[in-house]
């Protein structure tokens, strides 16, 4: 617009304004009227339409058909017309271009003309754009199928509509060499893994549909009347060829009025049909037709052409000796037994290694039964030879099969992945991805990565990213370009290996462990885990796996450290499991203590305690005043700061504080006593500090619960949040547990019926904790504890 046009417009506008209407109230009236209408319509929608809310989000449900809000549908639909690498054009370029054009409107439409009749091209393009968006939106609403009412001429088409078309539109461009089966089953770049949703046959049917849509059309025209494509997906190619070439000569087609297929379907179409029925998908073809004889992979070090010729021509490409001329019958039988079931006949292994391994490798060929195996071994090459695959497979199928076989001969991804995992990952993640304590930081427990739920909720791209770049903490990046040791292919192999766990998770924890971290005191842990094998009282038993833990031999044979190690890491020679993955170090320590307490021991002062004092203390602590170690009575009663020993209370005794170094001064100054010695003294004080003290020997699971071990964890977990030191009953210490309480002491030792703590837990009076009672077991523990004197 020229300057004069601008001023002209402004003048004209001023004129319009003068002749116009006042904003208030005239225009406001209109606005309010329209506004009210809009509001009423909205309320109507809210009332009659409600605010929709579907099921809670379920990340493992890859079957859900995603549907964006309606005003994004046109974009969603646009995406379908730009498959593969062109996606970018549909998603970003076109919308961005549209927005850029809108922004540039004042500069594209530069005349002074404003009436729509003088701006045909602007009106035209806007009309086209709006119509296109409308069309795409409607198209998308029609296109997105509802899984419930999907129908299709052929099975594969229905599968495609249901599972693929939402993201991929009407067709997918398949790059040559794509392992379709693996892609569909295992997911790919944000695409979910369909292994859990689709059967193998369905995946195969889909693969065929994808690589040969033309074959799909031929199938629909000629075969779909009787056959469902899914039914034929796994039929042997020999059968297919026979059925097709023999026409009515084929037994199942005998009574039907069908033409000879060679007269109806020609050349390329024939190949397309075969490719449709049996997708040129190397992995799948190998699995169907080769693995039965060749195992997961063949050992091949020749070149590709040789391999292709071999697959094409099949036949007796390797001579097998007639072993009946070489080996006695007994050895042939032994070999046959080994071949049929290796584990049942370990004696066959050296024979196999000697005679067969040169050609068969470490893989043992399979045979149906012993008779067949004997026959094959004895007759040598006269057993079934390899088919001429060149006659029955299409070129595309042969190429795919050759490519896969060659790749697999260099190690199938899972085998490579397994080797890599063993080398790089198992140190921290365990051999089976079961996790466990971090090797350099045992308090950091690494969670299992091989559980079904872990794998279900992470697609391949995620696992690949975790391995490549490392998660936010704890694990280094493994990809070369990130500074790690692995190539991209090797990471793919690792992902394949990890993914392979999903079908059959190697680690299934016992249900009680699956439930989460183990809680409770040592006694509870013991009765949950140890008692299964060692008995409730730890004494073992004739019908129990584990040995007695209470026998003198056991108690004397192992130090505390050795007991800890056995529990923590298990015993390779016995069926003792490593519990370190399940229990914390503290819980294992508690178990050791508990096992020690299972046995009663007598501490005699003059025999066990006095020699310690004499050896380590009497040189200084004679009769010089201060603490005097010369007799038991003086040991207890003397001391600069009052009696050195308070019988029954080691924690409160100055002697123990000095020995442990938790008091004023560590004693003896020259060097501490050993832990064993200190423990002995502590136990003697605990037991009452008399000439003869009996400790331990409580019956597990029975009466002798203590506050520290059994009761305190329950109270801390369930009561501590409210019952702090804010008045009323206080569960913080032993004394307060017993003596505090609004209505007098909460516990009267020996009398649970008369203890308000027990009664409130049972719900006599207002139930505690409010609204959610403790478990019956927990209440019973507390009642037993009170009835038996409420031991500290």
């Amino acid at each position: 617009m020229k300057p004069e046009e601008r001023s002209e417009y402004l003048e004209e506008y001023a004129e319009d304004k003068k002749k116009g209407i006042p904003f208030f109230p005239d225009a406001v009236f209109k606005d309010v009227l329209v506004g009210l209408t809009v509001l009423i319509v909205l309320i109507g929608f809210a009332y009659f339409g409600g605010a929709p809310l579907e099921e809670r989000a379920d990340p493992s449900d890859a079957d859900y058909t995603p549907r964006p809000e309606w005003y994004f549908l046109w974009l969603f639909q646009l995406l379908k017309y730009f498959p593969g690498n062109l996606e970018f054009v549909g998603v970003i370029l076109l919308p961005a271009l549209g927005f850029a054009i809108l922004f540039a409107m004042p500069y594209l439409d530069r005349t002074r003309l404003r009436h729509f009749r003088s701006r045909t091209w602007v009106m035209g393009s806007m009309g086209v754009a709006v119509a296109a968006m409308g069309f795409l939106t409607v198209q998308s609403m029609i296109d997105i199928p509802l899984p419930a009412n999907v129908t299709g001429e052929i099975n594969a088409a229905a599968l495609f509509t249901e599972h693929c078309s939402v993201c991929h539109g009407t067709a997918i461009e398949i790059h040559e060499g794509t392992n379709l089966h693996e892609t569909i089953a295992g997911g790919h770049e944000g695409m979910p893994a369909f292994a859990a949703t689709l059967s193998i046959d369905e995946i195969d049917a889909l693969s065929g549909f994808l690589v040969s849509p033309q074959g799909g059309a031929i199938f629909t025209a000629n075969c779909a009347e009787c056959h469902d494509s899914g039914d034929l997906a796994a039929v042997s190619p020999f059968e297919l060829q026979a059925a097709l070439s023999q026409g009515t000569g084929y037994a199942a087609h005998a009574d039907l009025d069908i033409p000879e297929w060679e007269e109806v379907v020609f050349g390329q179409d024939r190949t397309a049909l075969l490719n449709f029925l049996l997708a040129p998908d190397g992995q799948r073809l190998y699995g169907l037709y080769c693995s039965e004889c060749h195992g997961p992979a063949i050992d091949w070090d020749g070149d590709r052409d040789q391999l292709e010729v071999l697959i094409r021509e099949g036949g007796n490409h390797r001579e097998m000796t007639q072993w009946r001329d070489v080996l006695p019958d007994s050895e042939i039988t032994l070999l046959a037994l080994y071949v049929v079931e290796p584990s049942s006949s370990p004696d066959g292994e050296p024979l196999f290694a000697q005679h067969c391994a040169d050609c068969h490798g470490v893989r043992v060929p399979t045979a149906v039964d012993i008779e067949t195996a004997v026959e094959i071994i004895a007759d040598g090459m006269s057993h079934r030879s390899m088919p001429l695959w060149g006659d029955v497979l299409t070129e595309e199928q042969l190429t795919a099969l050759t490519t896969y076989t060659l790749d697999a001969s260099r190690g199938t991804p899972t085998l490579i992945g397994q080797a890599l995992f063993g080398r790089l990952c198992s140190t921290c993640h365990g051999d089976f991805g079961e996790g466990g304590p971090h090797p350099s930081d045992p308090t950091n427990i690494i969670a299992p990565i091989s559980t079904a739920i872990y794998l279900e909720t992470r697609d391949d791209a995620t696992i690949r990213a975790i391995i490549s770049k490392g998660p936010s903490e704890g694990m280094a990046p493994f990809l070369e370009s990130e500074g790690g040791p692995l190539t991209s292919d090797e990471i793919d192999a690792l992902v394949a290996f990890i993914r392979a766990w999903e079908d059959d998770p190697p680690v299934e924890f016992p249900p009680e462990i699956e439930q989460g971290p183990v809680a409770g005191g040592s006694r509870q842990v013991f009765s949950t885990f140890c008692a299964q094998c060692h008995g409730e009282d730890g004494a073992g038993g004739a019908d129990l796996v584990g040995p007695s833990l209470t026998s003198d031999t056991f108690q004397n044979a192992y130090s505390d450290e050795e007991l800890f190690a056995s529990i923590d890491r298990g015993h390779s020679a016995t069926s003792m499991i490593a519990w370190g993955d399940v229990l914390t170090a503290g819980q294992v320590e508690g178990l050791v203590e508990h096992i020690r307490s299972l046995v009663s021991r007598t501490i005699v002062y003059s025999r066990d305690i006095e020699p310690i004092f004499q050896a380590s203390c009497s040189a200084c602590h004679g009769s010089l005043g201060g603490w005097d170690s010369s007799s038991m009575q003086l040991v207890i009663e003397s001391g600069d700061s009052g009696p050195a020993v308070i019988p029954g209370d080691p924690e409160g005794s100055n002697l123990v504080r000095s020995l442990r170094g938790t008091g004023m001064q560590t004693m003896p100054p020259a060097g501490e006593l050993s832990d064993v010695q200190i423990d002995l003294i502590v136990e003697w004080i605990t037991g009452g500090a008399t000439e003869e003290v009996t400790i331990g020997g409580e019956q597990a699971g029975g009466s002798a619960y203590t506050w520290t071990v059994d009761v305190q964890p329950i109270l801390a977990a369930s009561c501590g949040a409210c019952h702090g030191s804010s008045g009323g009953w206080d569960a913080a210490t032993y004394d307060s547990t017993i003596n505090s309480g609004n209505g007098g002491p909460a516990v009267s030792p020996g009398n649970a019926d008369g203890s308000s703590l027990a009664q409130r837990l049972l719900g006599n009076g207002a139930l505690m904790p409010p609204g959610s009672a403790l478990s019956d077991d927990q209440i019973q523990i507390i009642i037993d504890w009170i009835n038996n004197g409420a031991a500290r």
Partner: protein
Amino acid sequence: MIEKIDLWFEERMGWRPIWKALALRNIPKVTWAYTLGSATLLVMVNQILTGILLTIYYVPSPQDAYNSVSFITNEITAGWLIRGLHHWGASAMVILAGLHMIRVVVHGAYKFPREVTWFTGLGLLAVTMAFGFTGYLLPWDQKAYWATTVGTRMLEVVPVIGPWLLRFARGGEELSAVTLTRFYGMHIWVLPALLMLLIGIHMFLVVRIGISAPPKASETEEEGPELEVEA
């Protein structure tokens, strides 16, 4: 009485000139199509008010989001209405903003001197769409989860920075609690701030420059064709 109150406030606030400039100005004679802008504004106010009410009960975590939304819908007094208005208001906002824009294009109202009004209007449309996209995830139901999974994945196709964009939007490789809090933060803080800024400029210009007059069909005849050629 009213005059007295009016005077009392006028002496203390001096608001009459503002009222005059805002309300007592003349505007050109307009059609009903000119109410689309104010209707959009009204729905926006509706979105803000109901949105604020929703944040009182909504909890942006995967554990609680769904339950809190369900609680709002089924338990809170008139919760169904608040959520319903917010839900349908979002669609109404997109429709009305779209129609408003079509009206502007038809009238050539983006031309001098209203270019800036047009730019801010486009910004507002983009912010509205962003509101729709981020808000869609918040109920954390199946539709929300999967639509956002697919929607954020589209970012990945951008060349070079695509993967980075995807991680930025999701706050990780996959949709997670982080995604939810990010979308929530966008939806209730970042986007409203942008909205306020843009709507402020937009409204200021509507008053300052004035709304366009409906063009007259006679304009072509007056000037002759040479100007068209020049364009």
